[in-house]
Structures are given as structure tokens and as C-alpha cells.
């Protein structure tokens, strides 16, 4: 009973937050709603005994990705009137996709797989099963290749970002911080006998 209650709480709040992301006028508020949404999603992970995934969701998405998002949005000047332009032009296409998705979700919800009782009766892992260890074992044995490929793709993205950003201007003067840090008192202070 309690579990269903918590599930409804997390699921409901994440839907409300999702609507908030789209509806709120202030982009900063949208970002805050998205963060709330991530929190509730991680709550759902916790209820499925996947505490590692829940925490990692907060650590990566809320702690790192959304901070950078917010950073960019803070710098942007958002013009609401500009955003409204062409609203009617995109409405038919957007509305059609929304309706199709709605029908699909309702069909999926009514298919009998996702009833509230099913969730409540799902077998829980034993108390001593360590979720982190289990994920580690699977990731480094069964799915090793996929895991490594993902790692290489991320590495490529990382190097790409560095390559795009790195440039040294010849006409600018740079400070040599190593030399600055290595400075000792003898280099700067001279004792003068008066």
C-alpha cells in the first residue's frame, strides 16, 4: 500500500514537473522543473531496488549536465515574443505528434502490464544483494564490448571538444603560472643595508 502511494507520488510529481518544463514562461523555471523531474525519476529507480542508477541519475544529470544547461541559459537573452513567432505554423505538426504519443501512452497503460498491483507485487531483491556489484559484474562481463565502445565514443567526444576549443593566440600575452608559483622570497625581496 505504502509503496503504491510513493509510486503515485513520484510518478505524479514527475508528470507535473514535466508539464511545468513546457508551460512555464521563464526558462530558468523550466530548468528547475526539469531538475525536479529528474529527482522524481531517481525516486522511481529507488523503488525498483536500483539505488545505484537512482544516485547516478542525480549525480550525472542533476549534478553536472543540468548545471551546464543552466549556465548556458543564464547567459542567453530569451525573447518570449520571438519564441511565439510562427506558433500557429508549427501547431498542426506538433499537435499531431502529441496526439499520437498520447494515444500510444494510453494504449500502453491499458495493456495490463503497468497496473498498480503489478508494481506492488513485484519481487524485491534480497537485503544483502548489492545493486552496484551486480551492475558492475554484468557490465564488465556480458556487456563488456558495448561498454567499451561507449567509453571510446565518449573519449572521442571529449577530445573533439578539446580540439574545437584549444587555440593559442600569438598576439596575446600569457602568464607562466608555473614560474609564478615557483617564486621564492629571495627572487622578490632584496635586503638593502642602509
Amino acid at each position: 500500500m505504502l509503496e503504491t502511494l510513493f509510486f503515485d507520488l513520484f510518478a505524479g510529481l514527475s508528470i507535473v514537473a514535466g508539464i511545468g518544463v513546457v508551460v512555464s514562461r521563464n526558462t530558468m523555471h523550466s530548468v528547475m522543473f526539469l531538475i525536479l523531474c529528474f529527482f522524481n525519476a531517481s525516486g522511481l529507480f529507488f523503488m525498483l531496488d536500483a539505488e545505484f542508477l537512482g544516485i547516478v541519475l542525480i549525480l550525472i544529470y542533476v549534478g553536472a549536465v543540468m548545471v551546464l544547461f543552466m549556465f548556458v541559459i543564464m547567459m542567453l537573452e530569451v525573447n518570449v515574443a520571438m519564441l511565439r513567432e510562427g506558433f500557429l505554423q508549427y501547431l498542426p505538426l506538433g499537435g499531431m505528434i502529441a496526439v499520437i504519443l498520447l494515444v500510444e501512452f494510453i494504449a500502453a497503460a491499458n495493456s495490463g502490464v503497468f497496473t498498480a498491483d503489478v508494481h506492488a507485487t513485484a519481487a524485491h531483491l534480497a537485503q544483502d544483494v548489492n545493486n552496484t556489484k551486480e551492475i558492475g559484474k554484468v557490465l564488465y562481463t556480458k556487456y563488456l564490448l558495448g561498454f567499451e565502445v561507449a567509453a571510446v565514443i565518449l573519449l572521442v567526444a571529449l577530445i573533439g571538444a578539446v580540439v574545437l576549443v584549444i587555440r593559442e593566440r600569438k598576439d596575446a600575452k600569457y602568464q607562466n603560472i608555473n614560474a609564478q608559483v615557483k617564486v621564492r622570497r629571495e627572487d622578490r625581496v632584496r635586503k638593502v643595508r642602509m
Partner: protein
Amino acid sequence: MSAMDMAIQAGIWALEILAIAAPVALSVAYITYMERRIIGWVQVRQGCNRVGPAGLLQPLADGLKLFLKETIIPTQANRVLFVAAPLLSLVPALIAFAVVPFGETSLFGIWGHPHVMAVSNLNVGLLYVMAISSLSIYGVLMAGWSSNSKYPIVGAIRSTCQMISYEISMGFGLVTVMMLAGSLNLADIVHAQAGGLLHWYMIPLFPMLLVFFISGCAETGRTPFDLTETEELVSGYYTEYSGMWFATFSLAEYGAMILISLLTSILFLGGWYAPIPALDVIPGTVWLLGKTAFLIFVFIWFRATFPRYRYDQMMRLGWKIFLPWTLGWIFVVGLFIYTPGLDGIINFWLAWR
């Protein structure tokens, strides 16, 4: 489980939360007092000594003063986020304490085996602490943005850059602890360091201890890294705050400082174990809080000793020194664990082998 049981359980949880939150708030008040006294002592002056005996009532007087001050909200500020920002920075600082194990107790022999004294003895405690402490950025960012003023926004941007940069090296430093302890549970990590001073992780992971503690200084914005709240920025992201909301920010900052000190003691300095096993007759909580108090003293000592970093120096330290250093140490520890011949050296600290 009946409704009665649930009510009792909820009551116990509320008491546990109070038993941590109230001492944290109180010790924040007295850390500000100790900070002023210690810095006064370092700088050969008195510090606060007028209110009450030896100035001991000074924190209460300060609290009362802040409480009675008017909270000003600038007209151009975003009201909702302006009010929410101090709470957004205080809440992560407090809820991170939920997984900190304060020791082990068998309640004077009533329980058969010792229980860990933590609100929640989470399996992924270390990750939880990392995740929660990364949330404190939002309070800072929101405060800077919603004030709608130039100094706060510059301060908030500096602060965010600093926190993001140092969080990475902090996280990698913790990976080495996980490699040795073989667990993410904070109580298990302490158990892995049982058996006296030589078993503490500060011996094999000494560089990581330095990285973690210095990164902790940067995370909390303490002195060598307090370029986010300098005079040139008129105290950075909380320029526009006054009264209790201002006090909330400093409560969060000092709370984070206590948390970093606690974590450093738990992860590297043997947690609740005494340096010599014979001294374990003194309760573990005393040892843990003693180590924590010493580390808080080191924070204050730093503040009295070091000049402030420049922005580019701060960035260089985080990205060009700490990050390669931590990555290298992960490699070295991994090499020692899995190379035949070398593993004999590190087996002494490996709890899981």
C-alpha cells in the same frame, strides 16, 4: 505493518534527524566563534571576548541580530528563486549528513551486535554524498541569477566553475578509496580501516587525502579559494541578501565544512577507530568527532595562513594538477592490486581480498 508501527517508525526517524540537525546548527554557531578566536590568536589579537564569559555568547548575539534584521528583496529580483536559493543551498548541506556513520554502538550491551549510528546505512553512501554535495551549486547559481545584479552573477559564475572543476578531482580521489575498500558503504569503508594507524587509508592514499581535503576547501569556498566572495565582488553571490537569508547561506557553508571534515576522517583517517587499537576503549564517536574537530581547525588555520588564489591559478590547480594526479593514482593503485609480486605490498590495506 500496522499504522501504529508506522507512526512509531516515523517518530524514530524524526528523532534521528533532529539528533543530527540540531547539533550541526549548534556547532556551526560555535565554529564561527572558534574561527574568530583562532584567527585572533594567529594574528596576535583577542578576537571576540565581550559578550558573555570569554565571548561565548557572541554566536547567540549574532544570530539574534541577524534574526531581527529586515530581509530586503530587490525590486528587480526574481522573487520566487531569490527566496528559494538559500534553502536550495542549505538543504543539500544538511541531508548529506543522513548517511554519515557517527560510530558504532550496542547501546550498553542491549543489542547483541553493534549497530552503525547513521540515519540511513546506505549501500551507495559514498555516491550519495557525492551526488548531494554536487547539488549545492544550484543554491549559489540561483542566488546569483535571481538577484539580477552584476556582482552576484559574476560571483555565482566563478563559484560554479570552481565547484564543477574540483568535484571531478574529488570524485576520482574517492575512486581509489573504493578500490581499496571494495565498497561504497561508508561504514564498510571504516571497517576496512580497522586495526590502528597503519591501516588507515591516509598511508597508501596520502596524495588523495591532500587532493580531497583541498578540493573540499574549494567546494565550500573556504579561504585559498574564496575568490567567489571577495571584496572586489562585494561578497559575491549573496551581495543582495540580508538578515536570516544571509545567515542561511553561511549556515550552509559551515555545514558543508563540517561534512567535508567528517568525510575526510571517515575515508582517510580511520573513522571511529583509535590510532592504537588499545585506545578503542574510548568511544568511537569521540574519536571521530575529535578528528573532525582537528580538520575544522585546519580549515580555519588555512584561512589565517594562505593568500587567495587568482581565478586562473585556481583553474590550473583543479584541472592541470589535481586531475592528472588523481587519474595517475587510480592507475597506480590498480597496478598494485592486479600485478603479481606487487600485490603483496598493497594486500595489507585490501579489505576484500
